[in-house]
């Protein structure tokens, strides 16, 4: 990567935009490419018997889309009386050439920022609790860190949980 950093052209082309969002008291981030849209949390239909992290399904322009709450599996705090309604990140996942959309419930979306790859540091093995396997890296931002979410791993774990492999998700 040494040669690319000296070339301003390729450096800028490598810069990625990230959506910054708040999740259970932590600042998380996700490549903007993966986020189809952000919705205000609307009416969800509860799915009795679904996995605990499944908050329900919603109608996204005529398509039924599941919405998950990652705070439970990540062991994060759930604010019982949120000051504002949470919102839903519509995240795309690609599966055998098919694009499916899954909703992730977050406390709020604060910003979209550009970062270059060398600003993304490897995630520590410890200290992130249950979320550790799903954090791909850290980005130092202002006074704190942004946790880069590895959505593919999240979806894999969700899919596993649905068929009863990794319980608790």
């Amino acid at each position, binding site marked *: 990567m040494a040669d690319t950093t000296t070339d301003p052209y390729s450096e800028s082309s490598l810069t990625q935009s990230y959506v910054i969002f708040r999740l259970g008291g932590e600042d998380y981030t996700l490549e903007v490419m993966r986020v189809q849209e952000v919705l205000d949390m609307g009416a969800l239909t509860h799915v009795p018997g679904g996995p605990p992290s499944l908050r329900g*399904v919603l109608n996204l322009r005529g398509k039924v889309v599941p919405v998950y709450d990652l705070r439970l599996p990540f062991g994060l705090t759930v604010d019982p009386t949120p000051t504002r309604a949470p919102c839903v990140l519509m995240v795309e996942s690609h599966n055998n050439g098919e694009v*499916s959309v899954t909703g992730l419930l977050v406390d709020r979306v604060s910003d979209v920022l550009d970062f270059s790859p060398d600003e993304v540091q490897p995630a520590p093995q410890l200290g992130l609790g249950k979320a550790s396997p799903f954090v791909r890296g850290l980005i130092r931002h202002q006074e704190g860190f942004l946790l880069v979410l590895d959505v593919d791993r999240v979806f894999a774990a969700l899919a596993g949980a649905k068929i009863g492999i990794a319980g608790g998700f």
Partner: protein
Amino acid sequence: MSGDDRFREMFFEEARELLLSLEEGLMELERRKDDRAHLDKTFRAAHSIKGAAAMVGMSGIADFTHGVEAVLDKVRNKTLNVDSDVISTLLEARDHLATAVEAEAAGFAIPAPIDLIKRLEIFLQDPATITPPPAPARPKAPVILLPPEPPIVAPTAKKPRAKKGAGTSPEAKAKKPTKKSAGAETPSTLKAKPGLNLFRISLRPGPEMLKRGVNPLGVLDELRDLGSCKVTTDPDEIPSLAELDPERCFFTWNIELETAVGPDRLDDVFLFVAEDSTVTIEQIDERGIIKIPPPAHEAVAPSPAVVATKPKPLLSPLIPPKEPLTAIISASDLAATILPKPAPSKPPAPEAPRPLNTASNKVPTRIRVDAGQLDDLVGLAGELAVLSDNLQGLRELEGSNTWITTLEALDRVSRLIRDTTLELRMVPVEELFSRFPRVVRDLADRSGKEIELRIVGQDTRLDRTIVERLSEPMIHLIRNAVDHGLETPEERQAMGKPRMGRITLQAGHEGDRVALRIEEDGRGLNREAIVKKGIAKGLVPIGTSVDDPRVDTLIFEPGFSTRDQVSELSGRGVGLDVVRDAVRSLRGSLAVESQPGKGTAFIFRLPLTLALIDGLLVETAGSRYVVPLAQVEECVALNGTQPALSKGRPCVSVRGELVPMVPLRSVFHCTGPAPLRQELLLTRHAGQRVGVAVDKLLGRVQAVIQSLGEGLGVLGRFSGATILGDGSVSLILDLAALVAESRAADTQRAIQMQLSSPSPQPSA
């Protein structure tokens, strides 16, 4: 997707279709031995597969197909008689091809079974010659050192080439008799040059050739396989770099081919390029003179004296070297012929080989669409209809007069859109039925029974998914019919029935459903044995009469019959529960009708479409659910009736009958007290009435079903979701799964209670 992948994808699609028509062709061939046009069509299917496979570089498939094609060609040339052995082998070869194509699609190649290759080879051997060992690899040069076969002179004006048979353009027919070689062709180089034909060929690819995925080099390779080739490339037309279109081929190839084969053989080579390329073939006779051919339409009509045919040369690893080569003898020595081949004359109307990657179909235009996109469209159209429904409420408002026409039009159009898109999902059951002649034939072969298959109503249209998913259940029933329903020819004769058993597949409408009947005129169900078994299994009370209507349906019970009861029960019941479950999962039902000694019929009754259901909207603990109307036999109000406990399960009395009850609230672990008045949805589970209790009935809905999304499909209790008029999502309950789930939980609980009797009953 890269270009290569795209062509491979196209190949797979084409190949699947061609393999289907090959199979149908082979099946028909047995019945229509003398139908030349049909034979040609079948031959062409094989030839097209070969060409298409070679073009995408699947030489294994191409080589193997060549063997199939060669056998068909011998049939065409009347040097091989069609018998059931030939057909069976060819069908088996087709099956191998189908497997090989799917394997390639999955990314690996499978070799052809040696024994199959050998059996194909046997057909290709000439009875007059000694059995030679099969050539192991595709010969790069024409087979040499062969004794020429004495030419067989056709007694009648048979056209030498099947491909140009019935339905050919007059032009193609006319040039036929002019295709002569100089004297008897000798395949052997030992017999010196005069035995070979010399052709001068010019191939000028059309502008679209490369875009269609046709590789001109493949053509050159194929020519090289026929004989020795001198290829020169004419680059004159290559434009300057600035004007160069990289997707266009600007070369013209000039080929001098010295070969033992006749001009007709060359036609095959250019089958795929002729579409938009300019191909001229000139034949040079032994004096080295290129004869300018008479214009095709001026050529003389075929006359018996002129034409003589011989088996065509076949060059492939499957072909033993002794394979006789073409010898076309002409009475008048028309030593050389030029066969101009302007592209447009190439595809003869209905039997034209379907060139790869072209849309030159004259049949009603069809386009392929992505099934997923179609489903999306159905979903959206359904929602549009719902939204339009909602808007209709505006009509009631004051001052809405100006909008009434628009609202009405919106209502009409949105319904039309929904109905049309739903119609797009429908396919004729023919797609399902077309594979059964083959299945029945194989089964008849194996069982030694004589069977006639009748198919009725194959135009009946059904949801695509249903057609796809019914195949296995139907094959299961057909197999049962052959193995166990139909008697042997001897038995039938003894009973005064025709030797040949008959299986009838019938499709038709019954109200808003489609009924598929699989009927056979065999021995009928053995009710005594079924009743005995049913009593032994505790499925029916002791003393049940043989005439009890419940008896027949016993055969659908899981585990009702196993292998060792096959003979006793004439095999009925083996896995029939699986068939029934498959039909139920399609929201259909399975029934049986049987008369001793006269036969048995199984009847599938299926919804027209899976995309829409008629449902009941119900409410439990504040959530709304849709229940498929087809699953509900009856709704009964429970006015505070306290369920009684029977064997630890809650039961209620419905008109004197004690019916087990599954409260939805407890299955879904809802909190809060149930309302006094509940509604009981009566459904049937394992032949028994079961009630599912819900809080409220809200009304009937027509719902467009959507899948619950990835992974959530494993929640069997919901068969999907739908979007209600107010835009909210409602889950669709599968009552059968719910009842089964609750039963399983009951059993589990009972076991746990027995195991740990001191501990309190687990709260599930």
